[in-house]
């Protein structure tokens, strides 16, 4: 029941975010909002990268090495192939191998 409420909240808030601009800015978009629309997406992606790695502890074994190496792999494959599926697959498989070696 509680989980169903959470899913409903996530669904409704997501819908609200998508529909709101269509309801508010019927005529024209203020310059500030347009500016935020340009600069916020890359900043939020940066935030989410940090969010995903928040539980890594660099001071204790394995010192965040699996995450670091897999992240480098994703960056490398992405820069080389410019294909998100290839880089995500490569990084995830490498990570799954590394955490099995580390234990």
């Amino acid at each position: 029941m509680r989980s169903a409420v959470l899913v409903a909240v996530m669904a409704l808030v997501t819908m609200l975010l998508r529909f709101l601009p269509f309801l508010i800015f019927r005529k024209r978009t203020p310059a500030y909002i347009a500016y935020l629309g340009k600069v916020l997406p890359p900043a939020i992606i940066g935030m989410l990268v940090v969010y995903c790695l928040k539980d890594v502890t660099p001071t204790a074994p394995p010192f965040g090495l699996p995450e670091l190496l897999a992240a480098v792999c994703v960056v490398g494959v992405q820069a080389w192939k410019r294909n998100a599926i290839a880089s995500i697959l490569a990084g995830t498989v490498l990570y799954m191998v590394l955490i099995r070696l580390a234990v």
Partner: protein
Amino acid sequence: MEHQIVKQAFFKSLPVMAGYLVLGVGFGILLRNAGYGVLWAFAMSAFIYAGSMQYVGVGLLSGGASALTAALTTVMVNARHLFYSVSMIDRYKDAGRYKPYLIFALTDETYSLLCDGHAPAEGDPDRYRFLVSLFNQCYWVTGSVAGSLLGAVLPFSTAGIEFSMTALFIASFTEQWLTARDHVPALTGLCSTLLCLVLFGRDRFLIPAMLLITLVLTLLGRRKGAAA
């Protein structure tokens, strides 16, 4: 005619197909590992339909988050959708009966396919965009459901599959870095969040980070505006 537009929409959606199937499968497995079966996978992909948010949502569900935390996290993770919508206001203005679904289904990938405004010369462009959006969601739902079913029968441990979410964000960060000329927004996001992680701890840094990012970017924008 109708056949033509369906075919063109299908071809347009092809680049997203592989991505949504793979990421959907990853999501389905992750959700099953957290103890939520195929109906949950279907419901989340049908009604939330926001990839990164659903990955984050698995953590919220299994971590026993409150409804308020879920709402605030959704606002932050999906805030970028406000801006996708802003840039589509004109394009979807006269979409009529397709408009509600076009807005609902405006994911990162669908936006990236439709934001150039290209549509076939013949036929109803809104119907074409509707079909592209619909095909994309079909791939996503199919992938999620398949992942959930697969997760139950896979003979090997799927521990570590959760890195696919991290990898997804690192890949988009890299891609944006390579295509953007101005790296200040990306660096602002990274540094502000790291700073807030150190200051506020790993359980409560997201909201301060979001505020700091908005503040820094607003100040930088003012400065640029004043200089120009």
